[in-house]
């Protein structure tokens, strides 16, 4: 990287060395990243940025919850169904499986990747099924979205989390599809890293939601 000297501050954009002299990039004229596809680094940056945006969404729910609880006297804690604990274990196991699969692929042990990734996919699906069961069990107890702000926030946050899991699961299934077709090229490996990173994020997010409702809400 060139140092910031007085002469180059405010100078013309220092363009990629492969560019023809005399101008910036743009317009697909051969600047950095020409060729149409996004780079691996850009994809990883993007997924981190998406995680920040998701974090802000849940942060908004959390701050709304803190204020709503502080303002009212209609807040009632309710018993969490036991299946939520099983779901937590399933999600942690899926995170471990997905990380193991990613590391195996990185070390070139390709034959371990597909089974481990498949286990993660199945566990992710099981988690979603478990969440549906939990909502049904709560309904059977008389705990609905409407009626109690605590249960309302529980439903909103778990629905939003499940929606994120569905999105991540689609990416995981796409990787599974590529792996089964033996088409995990450079692009596929970027999908592996990006989707596994997001999966861990959803895991941590879920632990946060559980902690919130077990200890406070």
């Amino acid at each position, binding site marked *: 990287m060139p140092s910031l000297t007085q002469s180059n501050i405010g100078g013309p954009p*220092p363009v990629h060395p492969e560019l023809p002299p005399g101008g910036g990039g743009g317009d697909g004229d051969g600047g950095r990243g020409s060729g149409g596809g996004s780079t691996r680094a850009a994809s990883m940056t993007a997924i981190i940025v998406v995680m920040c945006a998701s974090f802000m969404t849940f942060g908004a729910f959390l701050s709304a919850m803190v204020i709503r609880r502080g303002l009212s006297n*209609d807040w009632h804690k309710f018993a969490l169904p036991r299946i939520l604990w099983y779901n937590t274990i399933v999600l942690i196991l899926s995170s471990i499986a997905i990380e193991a699969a990613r590391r195996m692929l990185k070390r070139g042990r390709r034959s371990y990747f597909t089974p481990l990734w498949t286990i993660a996919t199945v566990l992710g699906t099981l988690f979603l099924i478990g969440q549906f069961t939990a909502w049904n069990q709560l309904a059977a107890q008389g705990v609905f979205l409407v009626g109690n702000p605590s249960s309302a926030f529980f439903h909103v946050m778990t629905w939003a989390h499940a929606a994120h899991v569905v999105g991540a699961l689609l990416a995981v299934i796409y990787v599974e599809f590529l792996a089964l077709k033996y088409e995990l090229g450079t692009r596929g490996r970027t999908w592996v890293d990006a989707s596994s990173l997001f999966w861990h994020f959803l895991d941590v997010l879920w632990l946060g939601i559980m902690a919130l409702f077990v200890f406070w809400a």
Partner: protein
Amino acid sequence: MKLPLTHHRTVARLYFWLSLGSVILGVLLSLVMRFHLVYPSKAVGLFQLLWPRGAQGGVMTPELYLSLLTLHGTVMVFFVLTLAPMNAFGNLMLPRQLGAAHMAFPRLNLISFLITLVSFGLLLASVLTEDGGPLSGWTAYPPLSALGAIAGPGQGLGQTLWFFSIGVFCIGALLSSVNVVATVIEMRSPTMPLMAMPIASWNWFITAILSLLSFPVLLAAGMLILLDRLAGTSFFVPAGLMIADYKSPHMGGSPLLWQHLFWFFGHPEVYIAILPGMGIVTTVISAFSGRAIFGRRAMIFATIAIALLGMLVWGHHMFTSGLNPWSAIAFSILTLAIGVPSAVKTFNWLATLWLARGELRLTTPMLFAVGFVSIFVTGGLSGLFLGQPELDAYFHDTYFVVAHFHIIMGIAALFGIFAATFYWFPFLFGKVLNETLGKIHFYLTFVLAYATFLPMHFAGFAGTPRRYADFTSFDFLTPILPLQKGITHAAFALAAVQLLFIGNLIWTLWRGAAAAENPWQTNADNGEAY
């Protein structure tokens, strides 16, 4: 050469056309409202034709006025001030300035636009419902916005569609911001350190980060209020609310909670609208001063400081909502502190102009850039009044606020958009807009913008309440009516002058000659000139 749909310049053009269509709609709505404000009982056949239920006999109902107000605010804030400076010109110039061939995710870029287009469609659908458009303004304060059809015409399906429109817009804005951040961080030329990045790119970058931090909060708040409306939850609606003979079944929610969440988005939104304009103005002033911008590094840190402080001052929109006085003091100090980085920017623009005084070239984009500085200072000064709780208590619900935000957020940002349109038109469409017509357009716009919005401060001093559809029933406002008529006449003249720009645009696209290699003859050694 025909460009693919995912090309950053094509996407920039799509955003440009959407913003242009939106601003025309927004201006027409404002003219109808201004007309009604000063001639409330005058029957207009066109009104009856356009709104057979809201303007029976050609006279507008207060509800129709409020629905037009809501549509005007929403269209202008989201589809003009958010899209044009950031998405249209950011897409156009960011890859060029960074030495990249394209945005990090070209397909995602197009998808973001299509999502925004769906949002626009939903917004239009919201006003075409049987009961008319929603009435609760662009801030959609509950409980009015959270109760459904019982709260008034347009508050049923229309308001629901409005919330869906905003939710979809948030998703489009978020995807677009992810693209900008990834492009700046990963697609920048390897020989370009962040501090050497052009100021305009810096401002798009910081704006994208602001979007990423604020739009998710609006999205979350939108989901909660939709559940209040559609499922009967009680996040924002208090217990025991009575509307006519109807008792709301909601329990214990808080309208203040919505205000906190909304303004946590809403205040950064002001900077989402204005920061790209500041970057554009820096570029243009530097280009036509023939020198690098004065205090370049300070400009970058001032942008970061404005964004950072902008995230912490949402409470100043709630001084009159029953905020704890200690919170109000904290929000007030932080709000007034924004004046410091804003003054740094203004000083640096003026210093650049001063140092280049013999070499200044007053082209149309330069005139709009200098006009931006004037408007920005004027709007900023009235902000100092509103940032103090004691003064805001009087001014908050008056036309003083209308004047303030139209000048600082509307006109200043529009001057930035005009500067960018004239300056980068050769990159956008390969032609140069007519300079003579452009300069006449600037001078008339500059004078008439002040003629429209400056007197509103005085209307505010006199206590003219905002959001009212009719002032004629109040004795204390009778002396202000001539002033209001003057404002309306200036507004009509201001809108008419914009036909010069539209004519210039159409004529140039239709008959204009192709732009030369360096149409503005800018100094190739000046990086901001790109």
